[in-house]
């Protein structure tokens, strides 16, 4: 039997959230939900895993901190030590108080930029990418639930209507 794709359109995020819970309770898999703004609790309701963006930021920050320390150590201690205002220049740790600002800035620089790039890559966002959202109204005021069904289409339609969908569309084959 061929697969059909149904789009249930909702007007209110609270109705949608309840609908997601009810439909998943009936063991029906929801393929995707498109919304104009973040809905709190939707990720749990859909059973999405927690995102690891914050962990990547921490790792990138550590990389930034290490690279900054390495750069400053090479420049100020190894390559060209200079007597600047009598500050100790033979060991890194003696001179470090003066290096802290730049080490901090590099940590933030790496964490923020690399996390944002990771975010774009993971979401498949890049200049010129084409949106795969089935209905352009979902960036305005509609919430869309995408369900793939094998079998009883009418029962699912009835359930969508019962849970509050204002419009149900079928994907054009």
């Amino acid at each position: 039997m061929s697969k059909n794709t149904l789009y249930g359109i909702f007007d209110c995020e609270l109705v949608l959230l309840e609908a997601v819970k009810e439909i998943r309770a009936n063991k029906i898999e929801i393929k995707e939900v498109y919304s104009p703004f973040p809905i709190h609790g939707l990720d749990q309701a859909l059973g999405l895993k927690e995102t690891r963006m914050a962990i990547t930021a921490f790792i990138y920050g550590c990389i930034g901190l290490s690279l900054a320390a390495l750069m400053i150590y090479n420049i100020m201690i190894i390559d060209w030590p200079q007597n600047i205002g009598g500050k100790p220049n033979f060991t890194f740790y003696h001179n470090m108080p003066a290096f802290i600002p730049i080490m901090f800035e590099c940590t933030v620089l790496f964490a923020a930029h690399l996390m944002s790039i990771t975010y774009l890559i993971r979401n498949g966002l890049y200049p010129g990418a084409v949106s795969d959202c089935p209905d352009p109204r979902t960036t305005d005021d509609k919430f869309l639930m995408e369900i793939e069904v094998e079998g009883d289409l009418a029962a699912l339609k009835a359930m969508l209507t019962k849970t509050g969908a204002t419009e149900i569309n079928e994907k054009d084959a």
Partner: protein
Amino acid sequence: MHKESEIRDPLILGNKTYHDITKDIAFPVEGKANKYWWILFSLSFVLFLWGVVSMAYTIGTGIGSWGLNKTVNWAWDITNFVWWIGIGHAGTLISAVLLLFRQKWRMSINRSAEAMTIFGVAQAALFPLIHMGRPWLAYYVFPIPNQFGSLWVNFNSPLLWDVFAISTYFSVSVVFWYIGLIPDFAMLRDRMSAKTAPMKKQLYSFLSFGWSGKAKHWQRFEEVSLVLAGLATPLVFSVHSIVSMDFATSIIPGWHTTIFPPYFVLGALFSGFAMVETLLIIMRKVVNMEAYITIKHIEYMNIIILLTGSLVGTAYITELFMSWYSGVEFEQYAFLNRATGPYWWAYAIMMTCNVLTPQLYWFSSIRKSFIATFILSIFVNIGMWFERFVIIVTSLHRDYLPSAWTMFSPTFIDIGIYLGTIGFFFVLFLLYARTFPVIAQAELKSIVKSSGSEYKNKK
């Protein structure tokens, strides 16, 4: 859904639905500019051109065209630099610190405040660039070995810290701004018709990076915003602390004080919020955002101005006390000369505009008035410019030997560059107001059902 106390005033007026918000935010982009926009734009553009001519003249003939002299060797340019950097601080404070504190009122104003930050920091960056004299050698500030051997930049110097702090601040602000803009560009893209506005549709399609609004994407969006806010918060405080260390780590009486970092950060927030008010009070009229930028938003900002203004006043008095208490006569003279010397008038303007007039915000009628707020915000902008002028010029103009004592007066070129950056700033901001979604509409929609007027009145 957010829960919110019923007695709080609504943050969105006029019973807006989601679609109304979409229409209102898209209106300035889709519609034609009105008369006020063209008047403001033409004025700013003329100033900008004056600035371009002055900068070209400076680069062509050298820094001798400025009013600097051997004694006052840092004046107008660094005053403007610090002023613009300070203005840049409110944007990130609103978008980052207020996000961490879950202040919902930031949502109507964060986009424009961040735009102001980015444009303000860009103006600030122009000043050190021109002051180099040979701006094409600006890459010398970065840690790359130059062609004369392994001559590196000095990591002990606050001026190099500044290079890192400001470039990080600028680029992280741009990224933070853009991450938030992507869903809003997608909204504009989906509203544009491929038939009537094909170019615009293509442009916003390109800018929106193919955003579709999937649940997983929103989940990542929220976490990335939160982490960026967490990273940007210490960044805001570090940037102006480091700017203040350009002065505080020197041994000039009047600069050599440990109070500088917190004092500069507070001053930056103070002036930044004043500039946000100046801009938003104009913008809400010019692009019809009265329902979103309400008197409540203005009042919240006024309270922050009152607080930071009072703290800045405390810092001024602490400085005076510490110079007396230090028992060092040079330190004592520096401050006595500030208040009573030949630049007493600059000190008086600073004290009046930064310490006295913001105290009017204790009155609720003034705090809740657009006109009074607009006037007082201009006062703060002026006062904070004079604060930097007072710190920089009065500390330098009485040098160690009385034979070197002198005064500073700006030349036509100095004034041209300063006004030019103001023109450039407004040119950028006005273009932004016509092409960008000026309010973070996606985030704003998420609070309609807790902070919108319709839901408030139901209760």
